[in-house]
């Protein structure tokens, strides 16, 4: 019984150690990135709380204060935030 418990604990700890970054952490990185972009462009937001991917380099970001922006890279290579 004790051996089985120890083995399962070892398996769980190794699984936790070797698994890659979770989707949640990737979301946090993206939200932080979008927050920085909106701040850099001088638009009111506060903090992006959610984002919905529409295409490559094209997201709809929802801010904490209720503002929503479409953030994308246009044909000239510029990052644009369009208020929705």
């Amino acid at each position, binding site marked *: 019984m004790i051996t089985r418990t120890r083995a399962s604990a070892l398996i769980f700890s190794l699984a936790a150690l070797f698994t890659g970054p979770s989707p949640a952490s990737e979301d946090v990185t993206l939200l932080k990135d979008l927050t920085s972009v909106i701040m*850099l462009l001088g638009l009111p937001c506060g903090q992006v709380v959610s984002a919905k991917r529409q295409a490559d380099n094209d997201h709809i970001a929802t801010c904490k204060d209720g503002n929503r922006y479409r953030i994308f890279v246009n044909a000239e290579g510029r*990052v644009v935030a369009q208020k929705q």
Partner: protein
Amino acid sequence: MISGIRTIGILCFALAAGCAGFKEAPPGATAQPLIVDPSLVGRNLDRAVADEPPRSEAIQEDLAVTPPPAEPRQPVMTGNEAVRLEPLAGPPTPPTELSRSQSAAKAAPPPAKATAKVSASPVAVEQPRKNEGPPPVARRLEPPLDVAALKARLRDTNAIGLFTKLALKNQVDDLLQQFRAHYLSGQKSSVTALRQPYDMLVLKVLALIQDSDPSLARTIAGSREAIWGILADPEKFNSAI
């Protein structure tokens, strides 16, 4: 039989644990020599040979009595006459009546007192040096960045995401375009009008990276004037950009 072996084992363990708790004194504490104050030998033999606490007291007394030798001492007013205090290493001057008796009393201590002072003074001098600041490695600063190096460092950092890097690059290029337009137009006015957008952009960059990459933020903050020096000089700007 087994209980006896167990008892012996417990006793050995207790003995080993007791030995492990005994710590050796640090090497600095044992290496310091004992100092015998000759002025105390005649008065009290028990106080003459002293360990660490009396030694520090002797140093404190010496520090209190001896002023810095390079600084000339100010005359002290006692009643109507000024008693001039001489620097320790200075040339002798004719003493007054009052100071003659005092100097005779001061000259009385044996020469071993002077050696005691000499042995104590390096310790007193070394102590302030220990608190001068962080070690040289920590104080070393990176050289200021130029525009190309700044772009490269921002491109390589992981502190900001891809969208942010692209937006930042756009804004840097816009600012450089403003400088370029200013120099091509041949305006006589200085570029100080562009200082504010430059400062704003630097502040934005610092706000973005100061939490995630503080070393780069420090480098950029330290390079702020150097980069402005490049941008504000048409020749440097044309050669660098």
